[in-house]
């Protein structure tokens, strides 16, 4: 039996929707139509339970499914229920158009009736993570991850190209904090990680999947081996590199030009009478990070305290601790806001001439040493490691994370995390927090076997001509070529469907979202629209189920109304929309198609926003080439913080 349940939401929606007419129109579509006043409450849920049996397929026309979705999902099978958010997507946004809103409700409910016919039961993906954890990079962050995991009873292997001792850790971390702090922390961490296995190797290859990675190693002694691990934490270190202007400032040519780290060493060893005049130059083309600024300030303060005359030529002082800037000034460091363009080595010293912008005055300093502020950059082997692991790098060579706002340690690959400075230069506190975060993610993965439910792509081997476009496009490395066939690694799949839109032969169909289902739905939507609204033009909004759908929900909540004749069709990800669905939409008569995706770089599946833009552009080109108006198709982002987006995109029609 196919059953429709409508909710009046405390009898408020019946002012905006003509429930009797909706019921009448849908009599032939559903075996039963029932109207309730509060489906989400205890009594409503009890009512549903009493009315629905396991064999029924159900359409619920109520509010945004997140509100009632949870209690409902415990009672109904995913594949036999389809929700239509009549409240947010219809009643609240067309509140002055009872007739239009009711017509739209009928069209959407008919669509849901078809949708529910095409739904498959979701695939259960089990992932058991091997308990072994590989930590790449044995700096302080690596040690911290190891310490946290060992404490929780998880074995770790720390991988380093060369063996470290306590001083090496302090040395490598000195840009992050003062020596005393570091020495104390290193001591604690080294003793907490005594039981970790440490091997001196570099990674030469990576295969397998999250939970079961196989890592090929080349060791110092020339031996080659592999180890198996469930998850990998990248905790590679950074190094201090000369800034772009180093050459102009005679770095490498004159003994008087040194790097900040050299100054730190000199000052440490400096005798009481051994005072110098030094000028520290900061490259203005380099965005100084807080930790780099902090390092600079700590070093110059020490230098000034030892009696040296220290001048800092900078364009911006950046630190997360104002008090260390205060301390630097009070220690007598002279700050000059200007850029040192060139220096001249003379017998009296290095002649540094620069414009002090705060007095519009060129000043000349003759100094014993010219010190270059260094750039904190990933260690040399990071790029190679990223290549092997299939991770991307930012313009400075740091490894990028999955989503920079609230996925601070997740890389684009499941089971591979990044802790500390491999992502960006961090203060010691932030680096330690980042390591703790990575340890948490690993621990959560290992703790239980995860069981995820979702629709996955099904590959038709006969249709597939192994062009590998899907393998290239899958943001989660869930498609691979195995024995000449495209194979789905379900443990990596995030159920987005981006693979579908890139397949040129449509050899990939997504469960519940087959081409046939789209064709049936789009045809019915158009037909029903024409039946209800005649020749009135209509628009399809292909919205991703995350940000775009939320934005449209919020349009309802905030009363940002838009004209009827706009049908929102949910896709798991906007990246799943292929030219086929767009062209079909136009073919059935839609005036416009809007593909609404997550904000640039903010796709929940990583690349869906980008993919949607590409697909739309491709389709526009196609339309142009056959003399059609490409402007009928558009890709745009929609987010909950911009609930007016829907209004803006469809307002030109009425």
């Amino acid at each position: 039996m196919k059953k429709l349940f409508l909710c009046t939401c405390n009898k408020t929606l019946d002012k905006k929707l003509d429930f009797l007419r909706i019921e009448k129109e849908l009599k032939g579509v559903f075996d039963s139509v029932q109207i309730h006043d509060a489906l989400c409450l205890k009594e409503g849920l009890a009512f549903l339970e009493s009315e629905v049996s396991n064999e029924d397929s159900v359409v619920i026309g109520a509010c945004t499914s997140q509100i009632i979705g949870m209690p409902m999902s415990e009672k109904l099978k995913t594949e036999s229920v389809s929700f239509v958010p009549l409240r947010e997507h219809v009643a609240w946004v067309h509140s002055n158009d009872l007739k239009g809103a009711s017509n739209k409700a009928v069209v959407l409910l008919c669509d849901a009736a078809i949708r529910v016919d095409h739904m498959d039961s979701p695939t259960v993906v089990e992932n058991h993570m091997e308990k072994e954890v590989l930590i790449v990079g044995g700096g302080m962050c690596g040690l911290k991850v190891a310490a946290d995991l060992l404490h929780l009873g998880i074995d770790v292997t720390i991988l380093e190209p060369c063996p470290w001792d306590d001083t090496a850790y302090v040395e490598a971390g000195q840009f992050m904090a003062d020596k005393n702090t570091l020495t104390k922390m290193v001591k604690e961490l080294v003793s907490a990680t005594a039981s970790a296995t440490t091997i001196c190797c570099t990674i030469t290859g990576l295969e397998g999947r999250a939970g079961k990675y196989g890592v090929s190693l080349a060791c110092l002694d020339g031996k080659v081996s592999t180890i198996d691990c469930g998850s990998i934490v990248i905790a590679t270190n950074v190094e201090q590199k000369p800034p772009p202007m180093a050459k102009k400032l005679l770095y490498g040519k004159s003994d008087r030009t040194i790097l900040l780290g050299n100054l730190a060493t000199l000052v440490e060893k400096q005798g009481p009478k051994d005072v110098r005049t030094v000028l520290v130059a900061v490259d203005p083309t380099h965005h100084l990070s807080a930790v780099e600024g902090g390092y600079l300030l700590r070093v110059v303060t020490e230098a000034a305290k030892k009696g040296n005359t220290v001048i800092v030529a900078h364009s911006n002082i950046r630190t997360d601790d104002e008090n260390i800037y205060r301390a630097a000034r009070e220690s007598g460091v002279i700050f000059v806001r200007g850029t040192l363009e060139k220096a001249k080595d003379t017998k009296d010293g290095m002649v540094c001439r620069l414009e002090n912008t705060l007095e519009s005055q060129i000043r000349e300093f003759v100094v014993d040493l010219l010190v270059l502020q260094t750039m904190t950059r990933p260690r040399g082997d990071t790029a190679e490691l990223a290549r092997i692991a299939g991770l991307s790098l930012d313009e400075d060579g740091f490894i990028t994370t999955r989503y920079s706002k609230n996925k601070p340690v997740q890389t684009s690959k499941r089971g591979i995390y990044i802790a500390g400075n491999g992502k960006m230069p961090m203060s010691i506190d932030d680096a330690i927090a980042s390591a703790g975060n990575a340890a948490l993610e690993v621990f959560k993965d290992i703790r239980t076997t995860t069981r995820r439910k979702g629709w996955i792509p099904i590959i038709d081997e006969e249709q597939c001509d192994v062009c590998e476009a899907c393998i290239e496009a899958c943001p989660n490395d869930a498609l691979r070529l195995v024995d000449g066939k495209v194979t789905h690694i379900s443990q990596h799949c995030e159920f987005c469907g981006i693979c579908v839109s890139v397949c040129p032969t449509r050899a990939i169909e997504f469960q519940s979202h087959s081409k046939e289902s789209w064709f049936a739905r789009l045809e019915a939507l158009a037909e029903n629209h024409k039946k209800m609204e005649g020749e009135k033009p209509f628009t399809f909004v292909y919205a991703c189920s995350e940000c775009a759908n939320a934005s449209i929900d919020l349009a309802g909540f905030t009363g940002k109304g838009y004209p009827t004749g706009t049908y929102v069709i949910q896709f798991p990800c906007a990246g799943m929309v292929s030219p086929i669905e767009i062209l079909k939409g136009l073919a059935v008569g839609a005036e416009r198609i809007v593909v609404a995706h997550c904000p640039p770089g903010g796709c929940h599946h990583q690349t869906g926003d980008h993919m949607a833009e590409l697909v739309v552009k491709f389709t526009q080109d196609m339309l142009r080439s056959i003399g059609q108006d490409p402007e009928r198709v558009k890709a745009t982002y929609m987010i909950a913080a911009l609930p007016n987006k829907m209004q803006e995109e469809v307002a030109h029609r009425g």
Partner: protein
Amino acid sequence: MTKTVVVIGAGLAGIQVTQQLTDLGVTVHLIEKESIIGGLATHLGRVFPTGDCALCLDACEELFDGHHRRCQYRSLLTSKKNLKLYTQTEIRSITEVDGKFSLSIKSHPRYVLLDRCVVCLECINVCDVEIPDEYAIRGGTRKAIYRPISQGVPLVPLIDMDHCTQCGKCVEVCGVDAIDLAEKAKTRTIKADALILATGVEEKIPLNLPGYAYSESDDIITQRELARLIDPTGDTDGQVITSSGDAAAKVTMILCAGSRDLEATEYCSQACCTYSLKHANMLRDKEIDVTICYMDLRVQKASNHYLDLAREKGVKFLRGKPDRVVVRNGKPTTIVEDTQTQQRMEIESDIVVLASPLSPLASQSEVLADFLGEYGFALRVVKEGRVYACGTATGPEDIPTSIAEANAIALRVYADLEGGR
């Protein structure tokens, strides 16, 4: 036996640490003094470094496998079984007995029942009372029964009893008996094995800041208030208008308005440079002329693109800390030395925006005083095995750092409570 943790403050960090601990099987009591969760983020609309929604949460694992990130209102946070959320709740006392905490908390009544309300919002439509809306900048109003913001969680409205006339119209219209005008405050005692301070920061209201005339003109506003002006869900529908209702054509921003100042707030609030740039870019998109008066531009690496973009879009940068803002001919005029030309300038603009410091909320509470350190911020581990802090309660920081910190603290608390295996 499952362990119990009290998380104080349901801002982004509090929510994050709660999500993680509950995913790990720890029972969490989440205490929030406001009627909705989200903290400072409820005011911000869009945030750096990604430019998307402030109210985007790392959603719980069991519900959203694959893409554990959801809008606050879709996160289903409140339906987690081992999470108890107390809104409108204050902590009256904290006592430590035999290594366990006992907290006395008082929850103020919402007058609308969470398990009855269907969020039809009819009660709000029928309410006759109109009072100034705390989230509005240009005179917007709300009802006595209201939802503070559209994404506010719990979604259920609440009644502001200070302004309610008890006319009973809302009760009458509510067909599901969700309104109880006689609801009383509840005092409870909760026991916990550990406390986590996630009390966050607020933007200091610069009422007593000499020179910047904040209280003299409604066209001298803070960055938080500007965020409300730009927000399309705010009372101006995202239009940047002056107090007289005209569209603003020229905006001057003053950074460090009270930060890095021994007389006001000594520390650098860290986030203001970046959100000022974010706002400046948004204003430039509306073709509003923007001048930023700064001392240093302290932008996090992950947000450097805001600075590059601001230069590209023609935001004017002036290095100098203004002495004062005076209202002349009804317009705020900023008096500042451009230190790089050594010229004293008087900049007349339609709106002046002050980047006011972020100050710790925990320092406003007497019961938390013992846990706080310098400037009213707490250490991450206040008391080994007992009291922790994360998010901006430990110092001003951006969202990614806050989230990482909350995650790290979640693991730390879990490990300390459950012990090594």
